[in-house]
């Protein structure tokens, strides 16, 4: 078996892809999680965006190193009260995108909280990624350096993006998918080592994260 959940031939809608990756977006309300997703999946930024209530689910198939990978994208609601529900969907996530708004300091300082929630509920193997959204705006409150520093501290890769003017949006998802694929490939080599065996993949900024928090 190559990779994650290799598609079985009995599956009715098979053959259109080689593997599936479950990816989750988390972060405070209003940071632009849904906008990033809509930009990536439908390539648009429309004024009729709506609040996410609970969990929303979208699919996009992409090409990674010649393989068709079906990305299963789970968009979560940012409001605190939904956390009991959204964490039920962390299970099995291979990639988790932590999003903040570069024009809103509060959403940036809450990233640590999100990081610990993720560590509590997601698989240890999940690949994380930090995203500072709304880079198009000139009312910036969090600098790129600050974003980078935090990413380094958490040991995860970092991207600044804008759903509005389509900066780095595809890169977010492709980078994440590649990192996941590399992780899977290397873990296959590592074999059956216990889950605490830290697997250090050669990807940029991808240090093994600790199990604490």
């Amino acid at each position: 078996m190559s990779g994650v959940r290799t598609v079985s031939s009995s599956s009715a809608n098979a053959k259109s892809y080689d593997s599936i990756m479950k990816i989750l977006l988390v972060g405070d309300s209003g940071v632009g999680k849904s906008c990033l997703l809509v930009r990536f999946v439908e390539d648009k930024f429309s004024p009729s965006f709506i609040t996410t209530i609970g969990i929303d689910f979208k699919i996009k198939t992409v090409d990674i190193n010649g393989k068709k990978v079906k990305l299963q994208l789970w968009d979560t609601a940012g409001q605190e009260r939904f956390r009991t529900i959204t964490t039920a969907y962390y299970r099995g996530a291979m990639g988790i995108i932590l999003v903040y708004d570069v024009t809103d300091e509060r959403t940036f300082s809450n990233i640590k909280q999100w990081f610990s929630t993720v560590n509590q509920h997601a698989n240890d193997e999940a690949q994380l990624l930090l995203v500072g959204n709304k880079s198009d705006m000139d009312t910036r409150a969090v600098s790129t350096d600050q974003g980078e520093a935090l990413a380094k501290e958490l040991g995860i890769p970092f991207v600044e993006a804008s759903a509005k003017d389509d900066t780095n949006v595809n890169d977010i998802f492709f980078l994440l998918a590649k990192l996941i694929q590399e992780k899977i490939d290397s873990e296959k080599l590592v074999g059956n080592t216990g889950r605490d065996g830290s697997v250090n993949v050669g990807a940029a900024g991808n240090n093994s994260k600790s199990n604490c928090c």
Partner: protein
Amino acid sequence: MASSYTVRVNDHEFLSESVMDEKSVVYFRHSERLSKKTHGLSCALADGDLEALAALGRDTDGFLKHELRGPAWLALLKSRLPFDTASSSKNGGGDPHRDEHQIALDVKRSFGDIKDDNAKAFLRHALERTIVRVLRAFPQLSYYQGYHDVCAVFVLVFAHASAPGVGHNLSASTSSTASAEGMDAPHDSDGSDISESLSSSSISTKLADDSLLLVDSEQLFEAVVIFTLLYLRDFMMNSLTFTIDQLALIPLIVKQKDSYFYRTFQLDKIDPFFALSSILTLFSHDLRPQSDDAPSIVFQVFDLVISANSMMVPLVAYSYLLLAKKDDLLLRYKENIDNFDNSTDLIHGVIQQEMIAGSSVQLWNDILDASRNSSLELPRESKKILNKYSVLLTNSRGPILLEEVLTWLSREICLNESVGSRNARLDNKKSPVPKWRLLAQGRGSILVKFSLFIGVAAILLKLYMQSLEGHQGHRRIELYFDQIKSLKFLGLTQPRRVWLDPLKTLLKIGRT
């Protein structure tokens, strides 16, 4: 039909007499019924005959149009919970509510499908004022994302557009310019100019075509306050615990009607979180309400809740929708069984693809009719699930006093705080090794085999015990062989259900 021409009467299109056919006859019957109902509603409103009003609202098409809907809702709501606006805005109601930041974020994302920019800004303004005013008047309520969708339905019902040139008596109302600046006023101030504008009874704006859009903000506020206190309390605690309790009734309703589907679709195993946005918003989030006066589904859901005086309506409607779609759902379920990490994801994904998006107006009308005819009774197990101050258990026929509702509310809040953020049956523990990794390592099949082994052992043990007790062993044996056979047909889609059930009964393991 290319040769036929259409005539517009009362804004409806129908075929002219030259091609008079069954369709036209149906249309005439329909329009006759509508005009009869309009008359009936107007009379009931004029006479203050609330029973007749509620009966008409529960009937097909609900309250028909906003002109009748607004007054009908208000009359019924006020009869249930007499509420004095003037006194309520005086006591308290000054200090900003803790959730106003979130409210602003959500209001900005409301009415996105309204074309006219002025109208959009105006409606958002009315929406924000209303929500903020309700929460400042009752600061013990917590705002949830989705409450804005519910309130947006009310804003649309209480907004009137009038044709250009029609004289309007604006002397008693403040004409609020809902331009961009007007929109921003409420939240970048310290709140003092809000209370000022909150006291005006109606606001209006001019649209691009010179017509006037107005909202009677007093009526809007009254209707929203009463609706909130009567029907939304469970959702407005500071956690989702009691909302999750309500969701748990959906599988029970489905089970009563179709226990096969209930089990096959794993509704006995997973939390029905997939229904969250539909229930929290009475479908107004998933079915964006149309801004025109068309007989839209969402308004009729609200019509039914108000006329039947029951928040069972959304739960029943959701359950009926699941049942109406069960064949498609099961098909998708089987198709996608390998595509998802776990049942929670699988069911959620299938439902999201199939249910809300894939439901036609016709289907929705059927669902509404079925809900109208439903007794709206609570499933038997409800009392064990719901807290005793839940809106599903406290709604009485007669009028309720404000003090009474507020007492329920404060008790419910206390209860909510004492249970903390108890999760329904959440299995939130990290699985030690993710399923995908097991699969990648080829260990998955061992698990399946092991559970098959337990299943077989359980069946044999049960059979053995039954034969000891001298029960009709033969029939049982056939039954279990049937189960085994059906398992073969179903492939590995169902092993858990078929195998675990005998195990559960044997070991008396309930759902934990």
